């Protein structure tokens, strides 16, 4: 094959996927990933973003996520795919604000230099020159950097309401216009520096706020996309043809090959195979379906071909039902009003009336319209909420940086506000309290050669148990043995030869499994060709510090409960072990109803879940968290994603959120306290541009310094 053709084929169809790789620590890790990953077939490039601990992989479109995760695994890194996390249009808004901030900052600094000369006594023609120069810099800068505020204010006025941007816009425009008038008439004071500094501080707050804004990702859309695009339909005469998922009808017979996802809900007619339900339930253990059993769209056929009689298509499928539930839940959540917006609602009218009153008051006192207007401008500038605009975003950005270093990805700034209010925590069981992947419970002591053979066998298969065994066998210090004649027999295991003798990792025979009544799918037999056959049992293990985390949460005032779709007995065992109430056998709609009734009762539940079946619950809950191993739907619906196997991130996040809200409230007190001191001066007409400059920057710096204390909040 022509190499050039192959390469151009890759680039044309190249897709890219983002992965979270929390284990990157050093330059060596970056070099290893960026050099070794492109060496595996199909991967054309990898680019590490160390700050976000993510890797962007460009790969051939036929490679699926599990293949890419295996490629990471082969070079010794654990990777988890991130979905919908890259939001391009958010970046555009952020860059626009950053450019405005740069212009405002540049202009403010230059005008400030000229103003300092004026304040230190320049007069006559040089003062006039400096004022003109300031005007030259300030007018285009205000026009450019003020746009975000002017546009938002215009929108608000058009809608007949008022927001924080209205007093800001009026203040900035009035101050600039008055200063221009003063400059032309050779007046003493120009406020160009104040107007620009105000814009710079406010834009800094907006930039930070934009960084924290939630991505309005629609988890529901991603969900339906994950079902198969179509299926092979068997006609009455035995011929088969491919049909798109939309064209399928109830009653069609589908031929589903091994490795294919189902496009419609149905009942198995012939054949017997194991199905991976992890997209729907988040559970890793495959389920065996025999003729007569119901299978749902989105599940993956693992072993052999089956025929399926379609029972539901399109919007009637179970997966579409979950998508609809999530859609409506997300809409309900958007009604939450952020603290900063609630403050703005009270603040904006107060500022307007104060400025108008001081203008009217000085007019009545006979000061003349010129002086009255100057004083009103001073009041507007002084009350403009620099420190108030910084109070929330600075604290949130600082704490999110700290939380990210602790392995907690916050997707939305308002999530912290909501998390601080949480007063109850509900856990999903499988994949949330447990690791959600099989762990060997009784790993036998293997000799060095045996361990190498086992590793070699495990690497030849992508079966979940093989993956679990490979991870349990430990790091790369035990290299895989070189095996020949490797044969992967679906449903049976891996058979190969090592130095001539047959070895196998296979399904244990009924004689070998000593535990009666155990599901044979959760054990493998290792046959080394000589010596005893090792049978390894697997179970879904509890997360390492689940008990401590739950104790810490209840100490924080968040009593826990389990809400699971699993069997009642399994949930009862778990709830007994962890000492909290549990309810099993719940369907997604029941979980959602339970949360809705809690919210209606005035509670603020925190939902921790991972599976697709938790999606609606995660979207409905007051605030939600998901492990990074969650299904992509779970990850998208959750407000905070925690990396790693430990549950300790949950109480840590709650503590950090509460610390943040404490600092935010202090910031509000500081900002409002400054206004209480400065506003009477402004109303009395005692505020010169110099006083305004000092007052504005000091209050902003104090708020920023107070927020910096949160750098260590997520420990």
């Amino acid at each position, binding site marked *: 094959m022509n190499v050039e053709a192959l390469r151009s084929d890759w680039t044309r169809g190249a897709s890219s996927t983002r992965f979270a790789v929390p284990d990157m620590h*050093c*330059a*060596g890790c*970056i*070099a290893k990933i960026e050099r070794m990953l492109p060496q595996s077939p199909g991967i054309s490039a990898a680019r*590490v*973003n*160390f*700050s*976000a601990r993510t890797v962007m992989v460009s790969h051939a479109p036929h490679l699926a996520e599990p293949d890419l995760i295996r490629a990471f695994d082969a070079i010794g890194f654990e990777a988890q795919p991130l979905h919908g996390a890259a939001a391009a249009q958010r970046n555009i808004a952020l*860059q626009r604000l*950053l*450019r405005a901030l*740069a*212009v405002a900052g*540049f202009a403010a*600094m*230059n005008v400030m*230099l000229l103003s300092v000369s004026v304040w230190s006594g320049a007069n006559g023609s*040089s003062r006039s*020159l400096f004022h003109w*120069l300031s005007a030259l*810099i300030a007018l285009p800068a205000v026009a450019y950097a003020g746009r975000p505020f002017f546009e938002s204010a215009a929108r608000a006025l058009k809608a007949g309401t008022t927001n924080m941007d209205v007093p800001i816009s009026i203040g900035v425009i009035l101050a600039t216009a008055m200063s221009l008038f003063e400059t032309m008439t050779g007046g003493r004071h120009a406020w160009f520096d104040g107007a620009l500094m105000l814009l710079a501080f406010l834009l800094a707050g907006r930039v930070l706020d934009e960084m924290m804004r939630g991505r309005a990702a629609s988890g529901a859309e991603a969900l339906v996309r994950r079902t198969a695009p179509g299926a092979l339909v068997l006609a009455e005469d035995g011929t088969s043809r491919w049909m798109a998922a939309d064209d399928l009808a109830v009653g069609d017979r589908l031929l589903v090959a091994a490795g294919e996802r189902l496009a419609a809900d149905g009942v198995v007619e012939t054949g017997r195979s194991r199905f991976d339900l992890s997209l729907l339930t988040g559970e890793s253990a495959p389920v065996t379906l025999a003729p007569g059993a119901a299978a749902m769209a989105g599940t993956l056929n693992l072993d052999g071909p089956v025929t399926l009689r379609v029972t539901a298509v399109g919007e009637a499928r179970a997966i579409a039902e979950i998508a609809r539930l999530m859609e409506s839940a997300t809409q309900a959540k958007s009604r939450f009003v952020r603290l900063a917006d609630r403050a703005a609602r009270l603040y904006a009218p107060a500022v307007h009336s104060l400025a108008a009153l001081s203008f009217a008051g000085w007019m009545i006192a006979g000061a003349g319209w010129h002086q009255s207007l100057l004083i009103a401008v001073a009041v507007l500038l002084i009350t403009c909420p620099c420190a108030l605009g910084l109070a929330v975003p600075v604290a949130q950005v600082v704490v999110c940086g700290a939380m990210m270093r602790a392995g907690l990805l916050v997707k939305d700034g308002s999530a912290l506000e909501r998390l601080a209010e949480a007063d109850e925590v509900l856990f999903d069981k499988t994949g949330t309290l447990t690791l959600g992947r099989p762990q060997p419970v009784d790993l036998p002591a293997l000799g060095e050669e045996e361990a190498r053979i086992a590793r070699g066998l495990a690497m030849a298969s992508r079966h979940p148990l093989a993956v679990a065994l490979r991870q349990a066998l430990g790091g790369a210090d035990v290299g895989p043995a070189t095996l020949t004649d490797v044969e992967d027999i679906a449903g049976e295991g891996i058979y190969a030869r090592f130095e001539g003798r047959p070895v196998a990792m296979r399904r244990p025979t009924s004689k070998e499994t000593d535990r009666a009544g155990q599901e044979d799918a959760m054990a493998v037999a290792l046959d080394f060709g000589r010596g005893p056959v090792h049978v390894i049992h697997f179970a879904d293990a509890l997360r390492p510090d689940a008990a401590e985390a739950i104790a810490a949460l209840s100490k924080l005032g968040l009593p826990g409960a389990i809400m699971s779709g699993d069997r009642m007995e399994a949930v009862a065992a778990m709830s007994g072990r962890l000492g909290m109430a549990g309810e099993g056998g719940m369907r997604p709609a029941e979980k959602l109803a339970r949360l809705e009734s809690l919210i209606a009762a005035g509670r603020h539940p925190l939902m921790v879940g991972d599976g697709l079946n938790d999606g609606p619950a995660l979207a409905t809950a007051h605030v939600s968290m998901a492990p990074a191993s969650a299904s992509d739907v779970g990850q998208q619906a959750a407000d905070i994603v925690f990396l790693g196997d430990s549950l300790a991130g949950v109480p840590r996040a709650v503590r950090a959120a509460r610390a943040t809200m404490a600092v935010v409230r202090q910031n509000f007190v500081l900002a409002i306290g400054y206004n209480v001191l400065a506003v009477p001066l402004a109303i009395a007409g005692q505020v010169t541009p110099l006083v305004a400059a000092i007052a504005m920057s000091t209050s902003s710096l104090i708020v920023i310094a107070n927020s910096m204390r949160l750098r260590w909040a997520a420990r």
Partner: protein
Amino acid sequence: MNGLLILIPVALSLGLAGLAAFFWSLRDGQFEDLDGAAMRILIDDDEKERPAP
């Protein structure tokens, strides 16, 4: 006073140059990965040319 006529345009143009440089680096994606940039300087990119130890 004559000095000012030269110095003020010089100061402004230097500031503008800084602003332009910032815009360029923003568009170029220089602020995407601040911690990574500090790390990457430690990566040896000429491993093949290095004499074997």
